[in-house]
Structure formats: C-alpha cells, structure tokens
C-alpha cells in the first residue's frame, strides 16, 4: 500500500466512512453483468454446495447440492448452473464486427490483409471476493476434462452434456481474471478496494460485508433502522461478528466457505434429514412411495431455504457494490481495455467452435511465457492508463518521483541545427513542488497531448523549484513548432518519467521451436493450444499455424476419480 493509500485509510478512520482512492471508475462495468455467488462444501476443495446467480437483482436463481458428497447430485447441480450461465456467456457470440488485421503467411512470410471477427460486447461475471474467483477456477479444473454420455468413450461416470463446457468457460474466465485490468470476471471486494479506502486493513477488506459497512447504507439494506445503523469500524465489526439467538451470523460471510457454526447447527442437521428421507424413499413400499417422495421434496425445500438465507445478504451486497461503482464516471481508457476482453472472449468462442480440446492442466513453456509476457505488458499499460485517467493515480506516481506537475514559467524557442534542416528544440521551464527523480538527460513525456511529446531534462534548479526540459518531438515537421503543440506560460502541465505506451516484448518462439531447456516442442495433446487465454490484439496471431488435432486426444484426465 502506498503512502497515499495509507493517508486515505487514516482519513477513513477519522471520518468513519470510506474515502475515495479514485476519481473515476477504472474497470469496465457491463450494462448486464451476471452476478454469481458460489458456496463450497467445507473439507473438500472445489466441492460445490450452492450457487446463486442471475442478471436481474430482483430474480436470483439458486441451485443447491442437497448432499455434497454425492457425485451424481453434484453433477446435477453443475448441469443446472451451466443451464443458467452458459446461455448468458454464449449470447454475446453472435453480434460481431469485422476488424481489419494483417496475418503473416507461415510459408512465404508475406503479410496479407485479413478480416477478423470481434464480438461487439462480451459477458461480465461478478463474484463477491477473490476466494470466489479461486472457487470458480477449481470448478473449472474439476469439470473441463469430464466425459459426457455423448463422448465415444463416456467412462463409468458420464457427466451431463454441458458440464465440461461450463468447466472450459470457467477456466477461461478465471484465467483471464489474472490479466491486470481485465474485466470479464471481477471480484467485488477487489473492485471496491480499488476505488475506496476503508479505515481497516486490507486483510479485513476481504470480507465483503465489512468492506461495505464503511459505505452509507441504502434504504433497502438498512434493516428498518432509520439512522442507517452505526458507521465505520463499529458497523464492520457488527457485520463480522453479530449473531442471532441461535448462534448464527446476522450477516453470513460472502463465502465460498460457510460459517462453521452454520455448518454445525443448520446445514449438517438439514443434510441429515435429507439423507434420512432418501433412505426412507428407497425402502418405501409402493403405497408409501408418494408420501416418502413428498418428504424428500420437503427436506430439499428446507435446505434450499437455509442456503438462500445465507446467500441473499451477499447477493444484495454485490448489487449494492455495483450501484456504488456505477455512480463513478468511467475512466477514459475503459473502452480500449474492454476491447482486450472482447478479443479474449472472441478467441475462446472461436476455439470452442473449432473443436479444440480443453485447456491443459499445465501450460507448455511457450504458452506460459506468452501469458506471463501478456500479464506484464497489461500491468504496465494499466498503470499508465490509470495515471492518465485519474489525477489521484497520477498523484501516486508524483509521490514516487516518477512524474511531476507544475506551471510553465517560460518557453524559449531553440533549434537543432546539426542536420540539413533546423528542427525545433524549444526549452520549457516548469515550476513544480514535486520532487521527481529528474536526472539530467533523462527522458520525460508530456501527458494529455494530441500527439506523443517527448522531452529531455535539461536543467534542474532545486532552490527555485524549476525544471527545464528540451522538447524533442510532437511539434510537427516544420521548422517552427505547430501552433498549440507547445504549452503556454501559465499553463499547468504534467510530465512523466515513464513511457506512456507499453513496450512490445521480444517475440517468443513458435511452439514447435521451443528450446530443449524449456521442455522442447510440446507433445500432441497440447499442440493446438497456441495461445491460451489470449486477449491479445490481432498483431499477435491467435492460432499460429499450429496444426489442429483431428480428434480430441486421449486424456488421462478422463478417468480421473471424482468423488
């Protein structure tokens, strides 16, 4: 956490309410996001217990597993989850625009113009917290290799038809969530923590209800209290610890893990009653069957009710968080970054359509290197764009000595006459209170100009608080600078000591040229995965000439035990 963040937290302690960490919204928010609140069964990682999801806050859909140890019931649950989630994810695939790009012919090396499809919009899934993202990744890992009855060799435990597809989508979304600045899958705690500081630690901010307790409560969530209840730390502590007469938390944790006391006092007895009802149904004679079935249905209803009570507060919290975020004006670069997400979505849609196998358990060396390079590049891009979009983010960089803002006191025309034609190289002097790491000769970049403008630090006068820069570019091609390309005296300008565009990393070898130090060319099953989880713009070929397997390869995962 930076000092500015700490300062905001200190202010929040004093004011008892969240203080802004951003003046604009730094993540794209869809008009129609899909909110997913998952719950997991304790003790076994990736075991689903329930999920509440939907695009309409008034109509959440709930799916539960009445007995989490039962594999068949789990698959039924996942099939229900898939039936609700997949149509939403797939609904963005049809509306496409054509984007021109160039592709290198693998044989001749010539560049040819191609038209690519880019989906006009992409889905957005919002989960309560980071643990929710991790849980979806586990679900993806545990289902994407499953065999279904439609496969040639379904194995002893075929999964419902759309479950492996659900796993592949969840894997793609959680993989993309690793890319800085991406918005296909976002945790609400992360979103809120990016935009507001609370008067508690980052650790405590992981609890969604405690985090939201620092924001004023809307009418609907006030539990009938006229004053909106206590503020700040007291409200957060209530959200964390307050229990009712039965020892149950008034505000259950956002999961995916449930409160152990809930497991012990509510869930375990309810599951026990369900088990008993199922046993009774199995042993029932023909006359009693109907009654026994009704009893089973009733136990399922009661379980559903218990889980709904645990999930609904978090469901409302996530929507409340979305309301708070929507009140912020969107940052200028959101559309550009969202395009990356749209490419990522389009790429996955295309890979599914091409019948490619599921994402491998572990990436091969080339894919891993590409993903890493992409994430590093996106991190740099995100930092730069946030700083340009938001004076508070730029303040962070100024505090770190990586940028400075000040008033222009003097502009002196000067020329570089070493070449055949003189070029403009004017000197701009800026008075600033900032303390940048301004070594002489260091490159600086002026922000918010129509064309990129580079300058070199020519003189630093610490006593007068001025920095003189020699402007090197962004002034047109003539002898004198284009009108308006230089700042006027009295104008406020910001220069950064970091570049304003992310650098392209060095090209990586094709998968077939992977050096032996990195495991050599990948084996056949991974061959088609040229660029996993790619959200890369079309400059990087999406499927780089790698031969596609004619059929889904035999995978050892198909026989994986899953109980």
């Amino acid at each position, binding site marked *: 956490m930076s000092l*500015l963040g700490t300062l905001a937290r*200190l202010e929040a302690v*004093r004011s008892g309410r969240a203080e802004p960490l951003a003046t604009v919204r730094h993540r794209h928010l869809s008009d129609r996001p899909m909110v997913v609140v998952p719950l997991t069964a304790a003790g076994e990682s990736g075991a689903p217990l329930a999920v509440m999801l939907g695009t309409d806050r008034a109509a959440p859909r709930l799916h539960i597993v009445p007995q989490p140890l039962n594999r068949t019931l789990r698959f039924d649950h996942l099939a229900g989850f898939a039936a609700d989630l997949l149509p939403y994810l797939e609904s963005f695939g049809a509306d496409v625009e054509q984007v021109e790009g160039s592709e290198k012919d693998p044989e001749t090396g010539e560049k040819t113009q191609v038209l690519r499809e880019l989906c006009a919009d992409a889905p957005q899934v919002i989960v309560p917290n980071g643990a929710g993202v991790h849980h979806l990744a586990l679900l993806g890992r545990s289902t994407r290799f499953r065999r279904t009855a439609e496969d040639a060799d379904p194995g002893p435990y075929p999964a419902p038809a759309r479950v492996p597809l659900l796993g592949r989508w969840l894997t793609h979304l959680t993989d993309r969530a690793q890319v800085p600045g991406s918005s296909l899958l976002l945790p609400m705690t992360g979103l809120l923590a990016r935009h507001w500081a609370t008067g508690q630690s980052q650790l405590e901010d992981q609890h969604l209800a405690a985090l939201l307790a620092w924001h004023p409560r809307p009418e609907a969530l006030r539990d009938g209290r006229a004053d909106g209840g206590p503020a700040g730390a007291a409200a957060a*502590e209530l959200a964390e610890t307050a229990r009712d007469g039965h020892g149950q938390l008034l505000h259950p944790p956002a999961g995916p893990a449930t409160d152990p006391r809930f497991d012990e006092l509510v869930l375990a007895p309810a599951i026990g009653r369900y088990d008993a009802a199922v046993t009774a149904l199995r042993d029932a004679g023909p006359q009693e069957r109907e009654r026994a079935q009704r009893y089973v249905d009733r136990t399922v209803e009661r379980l559903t009710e218990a889980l709904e009570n645990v999930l609904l507060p978090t469901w409302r919290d996530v929507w409340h968080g979305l309301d708070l975020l929507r009140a912020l004006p969107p940052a200028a670069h959101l559309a550009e970054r969202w395009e990356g997400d749209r490419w990522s979505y389009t790429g996955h849609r295309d890979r599914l359509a091409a019948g490619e196998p599921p994402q491998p358990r572990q990436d091969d060396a080339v894919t891993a290197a590409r993903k890493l390079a992409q994430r590093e590049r996106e991190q740099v891009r995100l930092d730069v764009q946030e700083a340009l979009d*938001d004076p508070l983010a730029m303040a962070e960089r100024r505090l770190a000595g990586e940028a400075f803002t000040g008033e222009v006191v003097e502009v002196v025309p000067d020329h570089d006459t070493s070449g055949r034609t003189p070029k403009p190289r004017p000197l701009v002097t800026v008075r600033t*209170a900032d303390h940048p790491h301004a070594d002489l000769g260091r490159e600086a970049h002026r922000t918010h100009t129509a064309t990129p403008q580079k300058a070199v630090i020519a003189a630093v006068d610490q006593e007068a608080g001025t920095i003189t820069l020699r402007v090197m570019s962004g002034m047109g091609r003539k002898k004198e600078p284009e009108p308006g390309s230089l700042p006027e005296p009295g104008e406020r300008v910001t220069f950064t000591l970091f570049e304003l565009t992310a650098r392209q990393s060095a090209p990586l070898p094709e998968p077939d040229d992977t050096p032996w130090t990195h495991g050599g060319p990948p084996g056949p099953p991974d061959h088609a995965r040229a660029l996993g989880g790619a959200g890369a713009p079309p400059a990087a070929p999406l499927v780089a000439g790698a031969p596609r397997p004619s059929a889904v390869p035999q995978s050892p995962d198909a026989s994986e035990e899953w109980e």
Partner: protein
Amino acid sequence: MNVSHIGPPEPLAQRLAELRGPAPQRSLNARALAALAANPGCRRRAVLDAAGIDKGAVAQRLGRPAPFGQSPFAIARGTMFESRLKADDYAVLLEPLRRHLGLPSDGAAPLAVPDLLRRSGPAVRAERTAAALAEAAADPSAWTLLDHPLLRLTVAGSPAYLEPDAVVVHGGRCTVVEIKSFPVLDGSADPAKVGAAARQAAVYVLALQETAAALAGTTVAPGPYAVQALPGSPELSVLLVCPKDFSNRPTAVSVDIRRELATTRRQLARMTAVDELLDTLAPGTSFDLAPDQAGLPTRPVAELADAVESVPAAYGPECLSSCELGFHCRAQARCDDRVEQLGRGVRGELGSIRTVAGALAAAGPAAAAGDRESDEAAARLSYAAALRAEALGGCAG
C-alpha cells in the same frame, strides 16, 4: 486437551500456575506451538500460552469471542481420508511410503506396527512411544510404523504432549508422516496450508529430537542447524500425504522443514525466557476467570481486562485469523487510535508516528511548516496530503 502435572514444580511453573488460577492448564498442542511463530513479538500471547490459559474463554469473558471453529464436514473429511489410508493394514499408505522412503514392495521386509497403548494416559503413552522408538531404531533393517505416537516436549518448564499422525522408523532414523486432507492439485498445493503443515511437523521433529536425545542420555544440541545423529533421530524432511487432485487416492510430497525447525526452536527458547516477561507484571496479576459451580466465569470483566492490558500485545490484523484474543486486541488498538489497526506495513511507513490522530495532524496544513526538517515521515505525509487534496479538489472543481 491434555493435562499435565508431571515433574517437580519449579518456581517458574508455580508463577505461571498463579496466573492461571485453578483452571486446568491448556497444554500446548503442535498447532498452538506453530502459531507462536506467526507473531513472535507478542508478549501477551507468549505469557498466556506459557501459562496454559484458555485464551478463548478469556476472549469470551471480555466480550469479543474468537470466531474460530471447524466445520463438522471438514473434520469428517479429514478423519475419512486418514482412516482410508490406514484401512486394511495401511494398504493405501504403503504406496507413498514405498515411493518416497524406499520401503521394499515385495513383502521381504514386513512393516511392524507396535501397539502404542492409545487408550492409556499421556505419560504412559509417551513412555511407550519412547520405548517403541528405541526398539525400532535398534534394528536398522526393520521397518516400523508408529501410528499416532505421543511425544513429549518440554516447553517453558512444563511438558507438552504432541501427537503426529505417523512416524516411520528405518535404518536407525525416523521420518514424520503428516496426513492432511487438502489436495495436491496438478502437482501443487495451497502454499499457506503447506506452510502451516510444515510448521506443525517441525514441532514434531523437535519433540522427536528431544526423545532421541533422552534415549541416548544427552540433551538436544543447542544450535538451530545442528544435525542430530543419534539412534532414532528424525530426518529433517517430513512426508506430507495429501489427496491427489479431486480423488481420495493419496499423493506424498517430501517437505524440507529445516527453516521451520529453526524458527520453532527460537520461539521455544524465547518461551523459556518467559520469566523475564513475568518480572514486569504487577504482583497479584491473574487471568483466573473464577468460574462458579456451573462453570460460568465470575471474574469482573474490568478487572480481567486490566490484567490482560498489563501485558503488552503486538497487534496486527493477521492476529484476527490466528489468535483467540485478536478481536479484543483490535478493539484496544482502535480505542487507543494506534496505526497498527491498518496493518503492520503502515507502522513502518509512518516511522515514529504511532497514532492515527498524530498522523493526520502531521498531514494537516498546520504541521507542514514546522516539522519538515525534524521528521521525514511527517514531511512525506504532508506532501502526500497536499497531492491528495490537489487531485480530489481538481475533481470537484
């Protein structure tokens, strides 16, 4: 929890007993010992743990009970996995032992599993474990599995009893086998859970070193990296057995615990120096809850809070997930306006400034002129505040 009143009462033990009152001593288990390493600077925890005080009960009486608990499903899963490994004469467990410890597979060397008298009292069980370990270490060619042995470790002058899942003895050396129910997924596991398991296993290794030293009639070498080479000495890597992927089949990983061992030893050495901490307490200090006949505490809350207050704590938000008194200490930190409530890193960032009010005063416009030379942290805060005000003001206007 095991109660232990063995050995002659030492002055230290007596002083700790006075702090505790008549309540039974909470003996330190491996988890508690390992958790000590999480916050070594906390005197409150060191004193209360050394005295064997039930911190959960104290926190409850102070009005901020610890929210910990384990789900019955998690417990059932752990028990189920372990019993599956040990079913049919340890049939499933043998496979990882063969692969990682070199247990022959042809049955040429049968695995001996001595009876460790699990139904007896802790002292008897510890004696029996020591005897079984000596016997097993005496024959280098034999393979012996000690199932739930009970080890004794002297902590702050009083014995603590520890129960590893299993110990395998062969060639005069033994290896701790720790069974955990979190999965190893595609060759990797949750690092936080592996770390916790390693710290716990380090406590077992330490106890085994003490047992081996006692069998040889010596004491444990003091250096943290000294390698013990006595009959029955433990290996410095342990075998972690976990479910593989989403199945119930086991997979085993050898985990080097030398670093955790050194940390734990340092912590325990500190605990024996607990008398220095006790010297600073006012005479008559007690954490006795004075339970009535129904077991309900009668000790006045204010008095108990004062006693707890007299031992300084080193609160950090991490305490909330590892210490029963975490919520109480947080409330105190907030009450005292201390900056630690925002995280340990904040404290380092703010230098000599200790309170939220102090930090905000340093950031305010009044302090900007005077303190600039004297305190770098204050100057930085004031600069940050100016930048923040400028950025937010620009947004409003």
